[in-house]
């Protein structure tokens, strides 16, 4: 099962590798990881997405994360209690089917941020599911590259 874990942590050297160690030591790959400072720059927030992880192992990792000295708070976010989005840049071949491309972009609320004779660069803010459909539609036109920020999540229901 996929898990999205949000960690509030002291903004200090080594904090990130303490967290990621817990996954790598168990042979788990991190699907995506974003870290940035919070309003108070003393702290940083990390959003860690893992897939193919046993629930019991995740429970251990959550407890272990909490046990790390610089970690202040750990949340296991679910789709019910949170919103998760990421920023994606997609480079698409613009030699053919520009009309189709712009239609898709409009339908998905995707911005065109750069145009060159060969390439359109798109910017999307979406969740994983939306990204999948977007990619499926764009693939026939020709995707040259894709850059993803990794997910950020926010707890929206409980406060």
């Amino acid at each position: 099962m996929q898990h999205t874990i949000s960690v509030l942590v002291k903004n200090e050297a080594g904090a990130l590798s303490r967290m990621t160690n817990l996954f790598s030591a168990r042979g788990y790959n991190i699907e995506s990881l974003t870290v940035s400072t919070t309003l108070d720059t003393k702290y940083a927030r990390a959003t860690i997405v893992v897939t193919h992880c046993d629930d019991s192992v995740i429970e251990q990792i959550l407890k272990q994360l909490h046990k790390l000295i610089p970690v202040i708070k750990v949340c296991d976010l679910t789709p019910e209690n949170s919103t998760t989005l990421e920023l994606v840049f997609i480079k698409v071949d613009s030699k053919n089917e520009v009309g189709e491309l712009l239609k898709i972009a409009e339908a998905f609320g995707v911005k065109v941020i750069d145009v060159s004779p060969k390439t359109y660069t798109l910017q999307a803010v979406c969740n994983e599911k939306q990204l999948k459909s977007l990619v499926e539609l764009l693939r026939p036109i020709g995707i040259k590259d894709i850059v993803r920020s990794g997910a950020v999540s926010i707890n929206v229901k409980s406060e």
Partner: protein
Amino acid sequence: MTNKIITKELTGSQVFLECLKNEGVDTIFGYPGGVILGIYEAFYHEKKIKHYLVRHEQAAIHAAEGYARVTGKCGVAIVTSGPGATNTITGIANAYLDGHPLVVFTGQVSASLIGNDAFQEADIVGITRSCSKHNYLVKDIKDLARVIKEAFYIANTGKKGPVVIDLAKNVLDAKIEFEYPKEVDLEGYNPTYKGNPKQISKALQLLCNAKRPAIISGGGVLSSEASEELTELAKLLNVPVATTLMGIGTYPMNDQMALGMLGMHGNYWANYAISNCDVLFSIGTRFNDRITGPSKEFAKNAQIIHIDIDPCSISKNVTANIPIVGDAKIVLQAMLEEFKAKNYEINKENKREWFEQIEEWKKQRVIPEIQSEKLHVHTVLEQIYEYTKEYEPIVATEVGQHQMWTAQAFNFTKPRKLLTSGGLGTMGFGFPAAMGACLADKNRLVLNIAGDGSIQMNIQELATCVEYNLPVKVMIMNNGYLGMVRQWQEKLFDRHYSETKISGPDFVKVAEAYGAKGIRIKKKEEIIPALKEAIEYQGPVFLDFIVEPFEMVYPWVLAGTPIDKVILSRKE
């Protein structure tokens, strides 16, 4: 003239010593080297802290752990950068797995050189991240005192463990006005000490109604000094107590309700009681696979109450029905108060059958198989135990057959008397740990029960013992084999003794070469005179017991089988 108060500035090295004094440290184990020369210069002028020069950095850490285990205080060690630091890893991992408080200082190259593959540079913070409770790299002298204060606090609170402080050379040379912080400010570190009162009353209720209750007492009971509370509660509730290897001594082994050690080489009756109980009250143990066997088969029909200070230990290996996160002593005290204040009723009659059954199981004892004229380790250990018990010695072991036999033969009645490497199972731990014990409890008899394999892993420390006159009595059970591994090969690999026959030096001559005493014992009648001579001698002694090579440790539960599949002899 101005009125400015002139405070003396101290170097980082001096600050280091002042911090240690503020923490009440008077004993430190270490080994010097290039980047920490400044600290050794400070030691040269230091009167209150005694530095003990070991002969290998691994031993400094084990000695500090031995000291910590006996005193309950933080053990402290200092080593240089690079190889000095990497030599400490086994010691740090050992203290981490057994949960003993250490503060380990490692030297580091100057901050400006870090990452350059400078001479004797090792990324010790990176290397120790997964085997220490916490670690720090100090690059600025302004952080030094705060970091040391935090390290001592973290090491000896919550689930205890080693904390590593890597000191960049520039920090030691820099100067600052020294001020020791009064408090620590660690926002993300708040161990839970008090148990949840609702869980506590639920646990009591369950224990009172139980027909076949049992307690497992682990190393957490020792760490939180909860033996008295444990004993009182066990008696009040009328529940028998088994201990893990780490929990030995937390409940008096000679008590009527003691089941002794459980697990792979635990007592038949302890394993049976735990396997058949209806309520299992387990305190300060993480249910290591050496005591549970396959966790699905473990205490199958029991409701499990589990106290642990570390939330990570709860429902990790064995699912708890009533988890209680908290300090063993504080939770047990709360249980005692609650029990005395309210009208809990325990039905002793209820449990009569259970106690009868346990008595029945107690008849299943190991009958030693006599194979030869040679000395047998259990005979030797029984005699050592009988002869030394009036001294209430501290007993440090190495790892192997002799370790398990020691755990079985010595009827430990007090905590902090057995020093043994449980979690990591480190050969070479016992001898340096015994040195630490000598300094922690200066007038006490300290034994190191060793194997001929293990003793060769830190044998160089005999020089340290001689130099500082640390009178460790090392009892080598010399069977010519890596006995515990040989035992597995005998049973599971058709007696293919692949690389387990091990030679050693003449231990008597080695002892003499180091300036210690050596005694060889080959016959039964030589045991007592040798012990007498060793104890009367004022310094360290090697006693080389030439013993039967092919003995097996029983009871024995094969790895991967449930703990009630106890083998008691070769015939099974």
